[in-house]
Each structure stands twice: as structure tokens, then as C-alpha cells.
């Protein structure tokens, strides 16, 4: 090979062997998965009716509906309905995120190492503190590990079809994720400022909030924005459970075989996500060094 192959190998890091092993392992697992799952090659070829649906659906991709495909005098204007669906999606996402931020901030503070370190005390007290932190981390892991749609299944059974149930379903897993990431960000902050505040006689809470949090804030805000973007997708999907967001409209239009309307909703959802992505990218560029 080329003269600099040795340099390239050096840059690759010490263990191309481990990487190759992991790569091979993944391929083997994927082949195994092909055997376990119901994935015949024929499953990739649309059936006759599927071809028909695909043809009609994909054929209208570039002609999204601007009005109802079958107009009805009682209906509100179509684009108004799309806008309302998008607005409701944003509202549900914002409601879920506002709760998630509260969960994330509270759990994040009390599960971080920075909150519990340097507290001195004897063995029993230390052990008690350690177990409180471990319990909080377990709660966070449980919140995170159940998908928002499963939380929705639970809450819809408990509370019925209410926006609160949907917002709570988003808020719990998102809150857990925010808590984990916030705690990691604060723990990575240098401690110099916090220690200086302690030396001035600041309380533990003041020391944490004024000495550690400001430094982590830019990362925290950027990450919260990114999660807001994700929560839009989650809020849209909640529509499949009957909450009136874009997903709800999309599902109904699909069932009515109004494919051009479906595309309008798909584009609306995409545009919404892209809009928020651009917003948070702008924020990251201007705010996070």
C-alpha cells in the first residue's frame, strides 16, 4: 500500500483488533437476527395490493394536498386544520418538556456527584447519602428505560384520553434523560469556582447553583433544545393514541385513503422538526463555544 500506511495505522489507535472483533460480532448477530425474525426476502417486495397503495401513495409525494380531497361544506379550511394540528403538536411537546425540565433539574441536582461530594461525616451518614443517590439514579434509569408510548399506554388506561396523560407520558422518560445528562454535565464542571464560594461561607445550595450551574448552563440549554426537537416527534406520534396532534390527522387521512393529505401532514411534521432543528443549531453556534 501507500508509503504512509504506518502513520495511518498509528492514528487509528492501538486496537484495530478490538474494532474488527466488534464489527464481526455485529455482522454475526445481524445474520442471526435475520434467522430469528420473520424477514423473508419476499417481505421486501410489495404485494399486489401493496404495489397499488405504494404507487398511489408515492405517486402523490410531490403533490401534497392544499385542500380537502373530498371537500365538505362543514369542514374548516384544510390548511387551517394542518396549522392547528402542528400548533397542537408544539403545545403538547412544550407542555411535556416543561414538566420534563422540572423533573430533570430536580433529579439532576440530587443525583449528581457534585451535590454529595465533600460532605464529610461518619460512615453511617456517608452510607445513607450514598444510598439516597443510588436510589435516585435507579429512579432515573427506570424513567428512561420505558418508552414514552408505553408510559402513554399506562396513563391512558389510568387517566383516560387527556392531554395531561400525554404530556406526562412524554415528561417522564424525557425528564429521566435530562436528569442523567444534566448531572453528567455539572459533574464535569471544574470545581474551582464552587470551592471559592465555599471558602466565602456560601451554603451548599448557593455554592452549587452559583458556582457550578452557570458553567454548565450553555451545554444544558443546548441539550434541552435538542430534546425539545425530539419531543416534537414524540408529541406527533401521540396522535396515534387519539391525542389530536399531527399524528392523529395523518392516521385519519391515511385511513380515508386521502394520500395527498397524508403527504401534507408528513411535510408539515418534517417542516416543524427542521424549523426547530435550525433554531437549536443557531443557538448552539452562537452560544456553545
Amino acid at each position, binding site marked *: 500500500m501507500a508509503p504512509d500506511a504506518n502513520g495511518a495505522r498509528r492514528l487509528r489507535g492501538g486496537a484495530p483488533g478490538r474494532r474488527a472483533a466488534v464489527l464481526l460480532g455485529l455482522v454475526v448477530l445481524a445474520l442471526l437476527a435475520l434467522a430469528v425474525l420473520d424477514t423473508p426476502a419476499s417481505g421486501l417486495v410489495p404485494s399486489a395490493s401493496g404495489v397499488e397503495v405504494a404507487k398511489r401513495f408515492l405517486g402523490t409525494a410531490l403533490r401534497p394536498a392544499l385542500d380537502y380531497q373530498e371537500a365538505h361544506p362543514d369542514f374548516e379550511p384544510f390548511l387551517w386544520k394542518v396549522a392547528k394540528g402542528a400548533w397542537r403538536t408544539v403545545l403538547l411537546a412544550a407542555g411535556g418538556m416543561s414538566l420534563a425540565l422540572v423533573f430533570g433539574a430536580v433529579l439532576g441536582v440530587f443525583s449528581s456527584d457534585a451535590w454529595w461530594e465533600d460532605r464529610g461525616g461518619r460512615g453511617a451518614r456517608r452510607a445513607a447519602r450514598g444510598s439516597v443517590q443510588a436510589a435516585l439514579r435507579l429512579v432515573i434509569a427506570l424513567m428512561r428505560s420505558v418508552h414514552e408510548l408505553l408510559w402513554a399506554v399506562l396513563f391512558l388506561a389510568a387517566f383516560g384520553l387527556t392531554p395531561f396523560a400525554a404530556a406526562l407520558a412524554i415528561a417522564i422518560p424525557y425528564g429521566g434523560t435530562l436528569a442523567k445528562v444534566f448531572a453528567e454535565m455539572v459533574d464535569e464542571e471544574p470545581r*474551582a*469556582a464552587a470551592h471559592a464560594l465555599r*471558602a466565602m461561607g456560601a451554603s451548599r*445550595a*448557593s455554592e452549587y*447553583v*452559583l458556582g457550578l450551574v*452557570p458553567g454548565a*448552563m450553555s451545554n444544558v440549554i443546548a441539550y434541552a433544545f435538542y430534546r425539545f426537537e425530539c419531543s416534537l416527534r414524540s408529541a406527533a406520534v401521540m396522535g396515534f393514541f387519539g391525542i389530536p396532534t399531527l399524528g392523529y390527522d395523518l392516521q385519519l387521512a391515511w385511513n380515508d385513503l386521502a394520500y395527498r393529505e397524508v403527504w401534507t401532514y408528513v411535510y408539515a411534521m418534517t417542516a416543524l422538526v427542521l424549523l426547530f432543528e435550525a433554531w437549536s443549531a443557531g443557538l448552539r453556534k452562537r452560544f456553545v463555544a
Partner: protein
Amino acid sequence: MTTNAALLARSVEVSFDGHQVLRGVDVEIASGELVALVGPSGSGKTTLLRVLGGGLAPTAGTVEIDGTDPARCGARGLRPLRRRIGFVHQQLGLVPILRASHNVLVGRIGEHSLLGGLRSVFLPRDPEVLEVHRLLERVGIPEKLFERTDTLSGGQQQRVAIARALYQRPRILLADEPVASVDPARARAVVELLVELAREGGLTLVVSLHDLDLAREFFPRLVGLRDGRVAFDRATSEVDARSFEALYAFAGGDDLLRDGA
């Protein structure tokens, strides 16, 4: 057993992970006195300052700050004691993302609860703002009042840290190697400023210094530390060149290993 000393250390020993940094230090500093701690790096200057400031409990021996032993006040009593001591850290300990004004206002955080502290830092009242501006003027950077601290130069950040320590309204001012990261011309100005400020406010000032010439020029009393012990402690006029040579003899090898201990 009352003394009128502002700071008192009696047979203070400190060890970190079995490594002994201070080996029986006795120092007494009267109220309003100006003292420089000198010695090679690794001699224990920083550790002694932290012990004197109540930020570090000695492994053995006792410390008294204004006649109070910090080891006996418990976590609650420690806070009012620490409020009396302004500490200019070598790493400054400023919050980079906040403005200079915020960083100075933080100086009185010890007097407030969490919410009161947030109020005083982010929604300061006019008298508070005036005081901060006056202090920044005193340290020479009034125009930086609302600049973000991480956009300031190293020397300017140091002045913010000094202003913060003064805003705290301390009785005692401790400064750890305040000129370590400043060029020689500015170093002189910084030490001069600290001494002036201490004289104006009648504060007790203890500064650890690597630079012997500065220590001799500005401080009437020098405490020389070597290898965790007090090598000499007398008026500057009585310290001769031999004492300094003894202080720095053969210390080179350990420097690299124990820097900043």
C-alpha cells in the same frame, strides 16, 4: 486561652494520603499585620494558607481565627467564620460565563440564603451596584463592569477576584500566589494594590509569594517555609541573604513532584 491574634496556628500538621505537607507549623499573626509567606513551591505555602483560612482542617494541631477554632464550630458555625476571610485563590475561582459584576456580587453570597443570594447577584439594588462599581474602579477596571468574565485578560480577571474578596467585607485577606500567572511588570502592581487595599481597610493580609524581591519590598514581616516547616519568621529587615539561600537550597528536585501541594 485568649489571644488578640487575628490568625494563629499551633503545631499544625497536614498530610494528604500519607504524604506530610506541613510538619508542625507555629505562626501568630496580629490583627492588621502584613505578612508574606515565602518558600520554594511544594514547601506548603498554599496548604498553610488554606488551613489559616479555615478551608482545610489540620491533621493535627490547632488553628484560631479571631480567637475561634474552626474545627469546633461545626458546619453551621464555619460559614460566618469563613465570611470574615477574603481569599484570592491562585486559580481565581471565578465563574467564567457570568459578567464581572456578577462575580463581584457573589462575594457576599455567604450572607444570604439561596434565593436571597440569587436576588443579590442577578437583581442587585442600586447601592450594591454602586459599591461594585467603586471597587472595580479601585482595582482599575471600572469599564469592565458588565463584560463577561471569560472575555477579560488574566490580569483583569485577577482584579475581579480581588474586588470580589473585598466586596465580601472581610477582616482578613489571604492571597495565594497572586502573581503566579502575571508578567513581572504587572506582578508588582498587583502586590502593591493588595498592600494598599489592606492598609486602607485596616485588614490583616497574608500573601504567599514565590518572588522574594516583591516580598521584601512590600511586606514588613516574612515567614519562610521549607519542606513543611517554618525556616524563619522575622521582620524583613532582619532577614539576610543567607536565610534565603538556605530556604531554596536543594529544593529543585522536589519541585516538579510536589508543585502546588
